[in-house]
């Protein structure tokens, strides 16, 4: 997983940014290709709809391009982009009055129904049970903590990128992550003890 500090921009990325700032659309196209997966997934996490996420991500890329003249080349591009896309997604979510449960729905879709228990060996059964317990524990987290944990672990974003995508300070990311992981640990511990008791 990436560290909490923003990753330095690569030389290739910086070059693409500089060319795009000069109006080279193809260079910006390469930046889109590089970062579209992260942008789309952040938007999906916030909107729980692939179509809406695609619209929000595309709009974010367009807005980022139009404002690219003010971006300082050499800085990592992805946190800045994710801030624009995350804000676009949040605005759309707010506009549609459907905040409640959106993250949970997106999360359920991402993790699916959980691993089947009918595996052929005890090891696979245990692995499946564990995965299902992790999924259930993640779904029991509050939305704010689940969003941060998901960005950090399922999207592999840095703390700075998570903060940018969710529109919250890095300190808030740290505190929510700490709380979320502590609750997950306690929840999984309880589940493990309960499982042990029934065997």
């Amino acid at each position, binding site marked *: 997983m990436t560290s909490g500090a923003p990753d330095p921009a690569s030389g290739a990325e910086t070059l693409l940014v500089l060319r795009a700032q000069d109006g080279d659309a193809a260079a*910006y196209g390469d930046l*889109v290709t590089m970062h579209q997966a992260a942008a789309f997934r952040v938007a999906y996490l916030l909107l729980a709809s692939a179509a809406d996420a695609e619209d929000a991500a*595309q709009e974010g890329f367009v807005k980022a391009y139009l404002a690219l003249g003010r971006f300082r080349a050499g800085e990592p591009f992805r946190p800045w982009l994710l801030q*624009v896309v995350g804000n676009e997604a949040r605005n759309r979510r707010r506009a549609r009055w459907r905040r409640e449960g959106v993250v949970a729905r997106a999360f359920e879709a991402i993790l699916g129904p959980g691993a089947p228990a009918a595996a052929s060996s005890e090891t696979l059964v245990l692995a499946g049970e564990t995965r299902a317990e992790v999924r259930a524990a993640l779904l029991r987290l509050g939305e704010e903590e689940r969003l941060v944990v998901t960005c950090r672990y399922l999207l592999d974003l840095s703390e700075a990128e998570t903060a940018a995508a969710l529109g919250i300070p890095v300190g808030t990311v740290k505190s929510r992550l700490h709380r979320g992981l502590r609750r997950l640990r306690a929840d999984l511990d309880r589940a493990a003890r309960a499982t042990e008791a029934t065997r």
Partner: protein
Amino acid sequence: MTTPIDLGLHALLRDAATGAVWPATPDLRAGVLARIGTASPDLSAPLAEEIAPHRSGTRPMVRLVRVLALAAALALVLAGLVTALGYRLPGFDLGFQEPLPSVGTGLDLGSPLPVREALAIDRPRVLAPGDLGQPDGAWVLGAGAQRIVTLAWRAAAGQPTLVGSDLALTVMAVPGDIEEPLVHKLVGQGTTIDPVTVNGDRGWWIAGAPHEIMILRPDGTAGVLRSALAGDTLVFARDGTLYRLESALGRDATLAIAASLR
């Protein structure tokens, strides 16, 4: 038996990430390039995150917000330092910036409302000085538990006024028991910050060169909703509420007014 805890929480989450099934990422390149066409990046283009949602700004306001959003980011970065220095109250952060951006003056205080309604709001509860009589105006910014309530008094004949207004004093109540401070201030060289107490509640008198005040969006997201250069200001916290008195009346008079708030 190997328990989930034995496996390690981080390993379990990494495993969950491996098993996650995201919708296929669409190819956005062609669509984005078609939309940007032959446009070039624009140095004056505002970013979405720098404009408060559901509000349209005039062009000067957009420029103002754009400049101050950058300052807001700096304020957030400085939050740790500010905390370490002790310049923090519930709902309030103080940061340093050099030089201050050259921006306009005057604080947009939100929507006006009848004074009696403002005084009846329970959270945050805005207090009125005992000696000044009824406020001449009241405003509310935001909604629900994160709204900011402000009372204002016009300057009497011969009294100094706050820059850009006919007011001598504003008293702002900001909920301080929320997770993220709603008010950020940036001060630069020429601004002095003196620790003070108001009936035992700690605070600061911020005076000298005009300093910047930014009020973050009430939904708690980072961004600038309102910004302005502020004059001499007293801030202090009481019972979970941040009180901010912007005053043209000087330190002693303002502290006396603050002591009479009830």
